[in-house]
């Protein structure tokens, strides 16, 4: 595909804003006004999107440490008992010869969360640095992040089923470890971090990075919310 850089009409440069919730296109909406169709506050760019995204991302990175160090399962069989972390669970699957499963769990629980946090940090840093390189690729990366977000919850669900089915009284039992709670929190936090990021920032040049429309006329706040505005 040819590079479309020649004539890109960008909303922010023409006083046009698409409502984030319902997609309606508004021309020169007043500052702080709501979408007339769905009532969502209209923003040219999500307010504080970088700060929110960083906050969730840093929290996720911190919790990623206990998620991997703490055991996710405590197992007892006859007089033997042991604990598994996420990684040792994958290793055990591999040693049992269940290579396909080991690869699925390794991808969903280790590769995806790491890639997600790394990729999001990269996007955030690039936007803050004011980088203008490969915006199309960064846009694609963001869409992939949005899509794969919840798949890492797979291990949490797998542990829930194991814990429910395996309790044969004294002979064998499986108890969940606190690592799985930390892991679930990492998944939720990375999803929140991804949702907070405003992908339109990928395309803004630093000079133009403004959070409101330059063309917006000043309107008194009490009149700005009138949903009947034409």
């Amino acid at each position, binding site marked *: 595909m040819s590079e479309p850089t020649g004539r890109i009409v960008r909303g922010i440069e023409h006083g046009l*804003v698409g409502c984030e919730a319902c997609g309606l296109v508004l021309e020169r*909406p007043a500052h702080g006004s709501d979408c007339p169709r769905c009532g969502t506050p209209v923003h040219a760019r999500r307010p504080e999107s970088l700060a929110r995204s960083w906050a969730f991302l840093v929290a996720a990175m911190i919790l990623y440490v206990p998620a991997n160090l703490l055991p996710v399962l405590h197992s007892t069989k006859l007089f033997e008992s042991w604990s598994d972390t996420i990684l040792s669970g994958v290793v055990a699957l591999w040693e049992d010869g269940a290579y396909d499963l080991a690869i699925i769990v390794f991808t969903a629980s280790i590769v995806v969360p790491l890639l997600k946090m790394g990729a999001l940090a990269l996007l955030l840093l690039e936007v803050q640095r004011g980088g203008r390189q490969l915006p199309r690729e960064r846009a694609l990366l963001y869409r992939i992040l949005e899509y794969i977000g919840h798949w890492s*919850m797979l291990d949490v669900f797998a542990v829930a089923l194991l814990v429910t*089915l395996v309790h044969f009284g004294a002979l064998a039992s499986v108890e969940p470890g606190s690592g799985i709670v930390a892991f679930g929190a990492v998944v939720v936090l990375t999803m929140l971090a991804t949702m907070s990021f405003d992908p339109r920032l990928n395309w803004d040049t630093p000079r133009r990075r403004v959070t409101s429309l330059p063309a917006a006329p000043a309107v008194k706040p009490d009149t700005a919310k009138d949903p009947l505005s034409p």
Partner: protein
Amino acid sequence: MTTSTTKIRPDLAICEHCDSVHQRLPLERGEAADCHVCGATLYRRPMLDLDAMLALTVAALIVFVVANAAPLVTMESGGNTTRGWLLSLVATTWTSGVGAVSAILIGTVFLFPLAQILLYFYVLQACRLKQQASRFVDAMHWLRRLRPWSMVQVFLIGTLVSIIKMSHLASVKPEPGLWAFGVLTILLTALGTFELRELWALHEEAANT
């Protein structure tokens, strides 16, 4: 109005991923318009009409009931038989001290998908009957917020992984509940292809006629 100069531009579409402005063009059924700048989907005309979507929603509700009423798996070992339902997973995780896992389960696999199905029914019915539904706006906002947090498909794969894992230790048998979750995954995915933004436009048309 003197309050603002805001104008609605139904002839335009703005890419939510890169903020580029496009002229809105009429589409054939099943077609999608992609952003020429970043490649994201701008808008689409759904394959299915409202009646078909409503039928899918009713089917999803029935399958949802089956998926939760029937056991997912049975496990036999040393004369003991254990059955697992989704709600028994919620209960055991709650009593084994990982309440957060229990909350994630009941939210992402039970409450949110159920709410999604009921809300879809409400908004589709409002569009189909061309009625001005009083809670349409709220229902649409909740549908949009819930979408990423409904994880039936992830639960299905997680359960399958767990079953294969356990089949080394004991005899594990998939039960009707698991098949129902498989069908529910397909139905919810089909419902998800219906753009909420199209429903906004449809409802607006209905309200204005």
